[in-house]
């Protein structure tokens, strides 16, 4: 199952090769060309009419995580975050270090040994370390090395009636949306450029160079976005809610969505009876922030699957939102075939 395979894959920013390999195998039979560029973006093309527009769909392969910085004489590992990691969620989590998935635990001083003032506040990253069970530095060095990425050791699980729990739904759920669209046994009258990007979590780096080389006429980024429809959060700060459909963005900290594309998406959703919601916060940024400023400007939007607890070891989505995101995008692509671009 695509969601399970993708969310369990190893792909800290800059080390997306495993995710790319899975996606390449999945989408290759359905695409005219699949290649990897200099920054590690996986680009899958479905050719259309040469005179037709170029439509770029993107989703980022990388996940937030950690990186080994230093191996102590004791054999424990010191690390730093890659992307937006909340240090408060790290203590005592099981992790895999490196592509060979050396198992470890993020350790910290146990409660018995903490002074009162230490117990009152969360650990910061410098107070944490990873224990891979090595007896000393020599043993640890045989298993891992500085620069190795570190992921949370979370298994995918279906929970509740329609929901799923996993790490890295941000943005493997977007990758799954894009893969499913590419795997539709269909060509359109325009060229579809599917881009699985690298290094979004460290600043939309892959998307910038990919859109420079592909020069699309329009770009849509798929994301797993913040859903804060949980106790303690006020309704106007939910951002999105699970189960209410894919979320459309008007503006976030990185870009203003092209209003003509947003309007077309709403029309398509209404016409086909597909639920959707508006993302009700303007914080955060995505690949679209980089893409829309490439060359002379590329009209762009973001379509997201609401995700609770993103950037943590375990996030939750509603699979109905995922399926509806695919339906919405398939209908949107059909609308481009029938009516052309919305501008």
């Amino acid at each position: 199952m695509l969601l399970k395979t993708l969310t369990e894959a190893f792909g800290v920013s800059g080390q997306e090769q495993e995710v790319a390999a899975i996606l390449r195998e999945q989408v290759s039979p359905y695409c005219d060309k699949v290649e990897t560029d200099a920054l590690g973006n996986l680009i899958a093309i479905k050719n259309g009419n040469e005179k037709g527009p170029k439509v770029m769909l993107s989703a980022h392969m990388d996940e937030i995580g950690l990186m080994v910085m230093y191996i102590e004489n004791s054999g424990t590992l010191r690390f730093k975050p890659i992307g937006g990691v909340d240090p408060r969620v790290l203590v005592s989590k099981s992790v895999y270090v490196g592509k060979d998935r050396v198992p470890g635990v993020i350790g910290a001083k146990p409660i018995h040994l903490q002074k009162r003032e230490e117990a009152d506040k969360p650990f910061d990253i410098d107070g944490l370390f990873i224990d891979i069970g090595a007896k000393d530095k020599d043993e640890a060095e045989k298993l891992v090395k500085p620069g190795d990425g570190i992921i949370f050791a979370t298994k995918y699980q279906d929970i509740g009636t329609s929901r799923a729990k996993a790490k890295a739904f941000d943005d493997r759920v977007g990758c799954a949306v894009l893969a499913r669209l590419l795997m539709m046994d269909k060509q359109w009258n325009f060229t579809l450029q599917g881009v699985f990007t690298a290094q979004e979590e460290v600043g939309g780096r892959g998307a910038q160079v990919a859109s420079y080389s592909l020069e699309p006429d329009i770009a849509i980024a798929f994301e797993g976005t913040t859903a804060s429809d949980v106790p303690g959060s006020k309704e106007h700060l939910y951002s999105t809610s699970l189960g209410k459909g894919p979320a459309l963005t008007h503006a976030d900290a990185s870009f203003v969505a092209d209003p003509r594309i947003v309007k077309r998406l709403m029309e398509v959703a209404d016409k086909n009876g597909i639920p959707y919601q508006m993302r009700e916060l303007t914080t955060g940024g995505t690949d679209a922030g980089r893409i829309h400023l490439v060359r002379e400007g590329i009209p762009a939007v973001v379509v997201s699957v609401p995700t609770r607890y993103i950037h943590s070891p375990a996030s939750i989505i509603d699979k109905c939102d995922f399926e509806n995101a695919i339906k919405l995008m398939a209908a949107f692509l059909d609308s481009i075939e029938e009516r052309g671009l919305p501008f």
Partner: protein
Amino acid sequence: MKDLLKKLVEAFGPAGNESRIRDVIRKEVEGLVDEVTVDAMGNLIAIRRGQGPRVMIAAHMDEIGVIVTHIDDEGFVRFSNMGGISPFMLIGQRVIFDNGTIGAFGMEKLDDMKDLKLNKMFIDIGAKDGASAKEKVSIGDIGAFHREAHFQGDRVIAKSLDNRAGCAVLVQALKELAGREIPNQVYAVFTVQEELGLRGAKTAAYGINPDVGFAVDVTGTGDTPEAPTMAVKLGEGPTIKVKDRVVLTHPRVRRFMTETAEKNGIPYQLEILEGGGTDTGPIHLTREGVPSGAISVPTRYIHTPSEMADMNDMKNAVKLFVAILEAKLDEAIL
């Protein structure tokens, strides 16, 4: 120039929704130039073709504003900022949306005024409930401040002098150059989304691929009681930028600008802006790099609905741009 400035500052054009101000400026510049185009981001580009190097002059036409993020069942509208907005500045202000709907800003009960944040505030459009509010505004609608311009002596008090003052300078310079031969090709760009991170200028500069770049914007001053230290005063002339957060003015461009001002008897001040940046930033980093500079209109109370500037500084900025564009820029700078 007062009439032009009044028209521009009172026009609606918050960052991300610049179509109305774009139409206003388009009407002003059509006929003054050879071609007027709009690019993918929404930048308005007025082109004077001819001989000589390509000179891009950017004036951002967007103003700070707010975006609707949530409408509750009682009809209150939650919002976020588009550009740099202090919540304290909103108290007592009015916002206007594209369809003319006007709202007042309100806030939740606070124990301490220091706790005021945008997410504790809301817009009240006088709706009786959520359904009637949604008839007037939608999530994603972008609003601007609602204020008239007021002229008093040489001074003007208005919203959005940042950067309609710069737009007025650029439009006026095009008016004065109309019909005159000049040794440069001019790309006057009224950019979008400057307040959101200098975005419009980036794509416009890439498309134009200029040989020389300029921006015209507003800058802060140090001439009010207990002001931050800054050697810029209202009425002492436009500023020639030395540096801000995103650019160090190219030394040849800066020298050329100061020499041009002195030769033409135009008063000027040197500007070192410690916070903030302008469109010169993305322009000078375009492609292989573009020698660039900037002229600013000294302005007090920037990013409030009551900014203040001196008309003489704007008139002198026009003179300086006219003199710059009449010079052989390839010999002077390149």
